[in-house]
């Protein structure tokens, strides 16, 4: 069973649209939407939720006003500015470390489990989708990503699926790291812009740091031939294979508005295109196996 994570560094390069396109082509897969604080894959996969789970992770401090003497030792010690002078806990700053509860001379602070969002196991026409919604402003996005991935892997093993395809988030911080570690292949979606190349280099460096082989896909490639050339040159210099190029086409938006994958929306052109991209991915996975 192989895990493929789709990343980009820069937001908006087309990860989710490409995941949906690949899902229309790939056999035997479980989908995981690990962009937990801005999840969109469900909008084109129309999942039917089978099970829903509360994501309880970390803790939040709560001050018991009856026991509080107002000494403000908690406010003084907190390193995150999470206690106001009333004193009152500011949930959006509280990291749940427990220092305030530990130092409180009156045991007036309780650390309570934190409900940070939900995760779901759903059926879609492409296979099982494991997805989540992090409550806006909540902590522990990295742990929610890990939860989603672990469930997707467990389900894939249970059902004998060959692939887990992960829709990742932009950036290079902890949710991306949680999507990347232990993956068999990272498909990096770039677009021909100076910003995207800058960001691609950083996410590529991150993938190398975690020993995950990469493949680059240039989306909206005809937006700028010169910038596409720069990306391809970077790939050649860095030894990163290129899975293909996708032209800048309004059908990507039209498919999304229609709630379909671009392969479903324009099968004649996009079916073969995504088929070729998938073949590049399989070849890359095969190479990794040989290397081991």
């Amino acid at each position, binding site marked *: 069973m192989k895990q493929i994570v789709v990343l980009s560094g820069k937001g908006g390069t087309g990860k989710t649209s490409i995941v949906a396109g690949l899902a229309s082509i790939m056999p035997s897969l479980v989908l995981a939407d690990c962009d937990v604080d801005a999840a969109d894959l469900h909008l084109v996969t129309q999942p039917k939720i089978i099970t829903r789970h509360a994501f309880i992770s970390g803790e939040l401090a709560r001050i018991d006003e009856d026991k509080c003497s107002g000494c403000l030792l908690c406010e003084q010690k907190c390193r995150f500015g999470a206690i106001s002078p009333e004193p009152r806990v500011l949930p959006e*700053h509280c990291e749940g470390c427990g*220092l305030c509860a530990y130092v409180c001379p009156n045991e007036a602070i309780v650390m309570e489990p934190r409900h940070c969002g939900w995760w779901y196991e759903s059926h879609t026409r492409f296979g099982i989708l494991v997805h989540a919604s992090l409550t*806006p402003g909540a902590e522990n996005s990295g742990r929610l990503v890990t939860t989603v991935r672990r469930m997707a892997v467990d389900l894939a093993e249970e059902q004998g699926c060959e692939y887990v395809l992960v829709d990742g988030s932009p950036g290079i911080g902890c949710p991306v790291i949680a999507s990347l570690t232990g993956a068999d292949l990272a498909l990096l979606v770039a677009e021909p812009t100076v910003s995207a190349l800058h960001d691609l280099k950083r996410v590529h460096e991150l993938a190398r740091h975690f020993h995950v082989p990469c493949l680059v896909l240039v989306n909206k490639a005809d937006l700028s031939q010169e910038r596409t050339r720069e990306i391809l040159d970077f790939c050649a210099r860095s030894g990163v294979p290129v899975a293909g190029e996708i032209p800048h086409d309004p059908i990507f938006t039209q498919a999304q508005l229609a709630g379909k994958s671009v392969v479903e929306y324009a099968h004649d052109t996009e079916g073969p295109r995504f088929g070729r991209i998938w073949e590049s991915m399989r070849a890359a996975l095969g190479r990794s196996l040989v290397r081991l």
Partner: protein
Amino acid sequence: MRIAIASGKGGTGKTTLAVNLAAVLAEQGLAPVLADCDVEEPNSHVFLAPDWTSEKRVTQPVPAIDVTTCLGADCRRCVDLCRFKALILMAGEVMTFPELCHGCGLCAEACPAGAVGWTERDLGVVRSGQAHGLRVVGGLMRVGEPMAVPLIREVKHEADTGALQIWDCPPGTACPAVASLQGADYALLVTEPTAFGLHDLTLAVALVRELGLPFGVALNRAGMGDDRVERYLDKEGIPLLASLPYSLEAAQAGADGRLLVEALPGMREAYTELWLALRQSLDQEVTS
């Protein structure tokens, strides 16, 4: 005045709006400071090309255990108390996982032997410079560092030298976006007229409401999708401050790292109008 530019969805045009708005305000002599809070993947420097005149390494304190005074398995209080599993007991010794450490200080507070000292974990750098008549402050997170928040806080602290600040925020609604939005006087949410754009906008709206921030929306790439965003804003009574039309020329200018207000006719006026609409929206919030 501190204006945070956020979104929910990545790639809607936060940086585009931040740098072009900052450039227009600088031209008007308002001397804005642009803080690039997207420390994981900063891009404002691509468009503004500042001369970085200062660069400061930013670190996070992480525990360093003095094995000579540590009581090890006979105590293990730090290991048991740490909420982040940054300390473990291995072969009778306390070992640390610096990248899991949040720097809360509970281990040091709890240690009965005074065996917890401090060392540093490298988070990245904060840099600042000048360009286009404005001060640019940005952060570049170390690749491999999981936590953006401490570096974002440093960037904002460093940028807090001007009366008018534009904060270019990272995408999403998790801690990096929260840390970037906190303390803003107004949040400008940038979206695009698509299904993903609308969905993620609703999450960003939930976030700014949770944070109690006055906000308005700029619709970028208007015309590339449908009218679902406008219908949503209308229904929710959320001010639409600007509708910036999609054009291939704008996309290509942006692709090349050019400021739209310099590259294309009409853009300077469009951004000036956006600023006026934003000021009006903020004034209305203050009086209501």
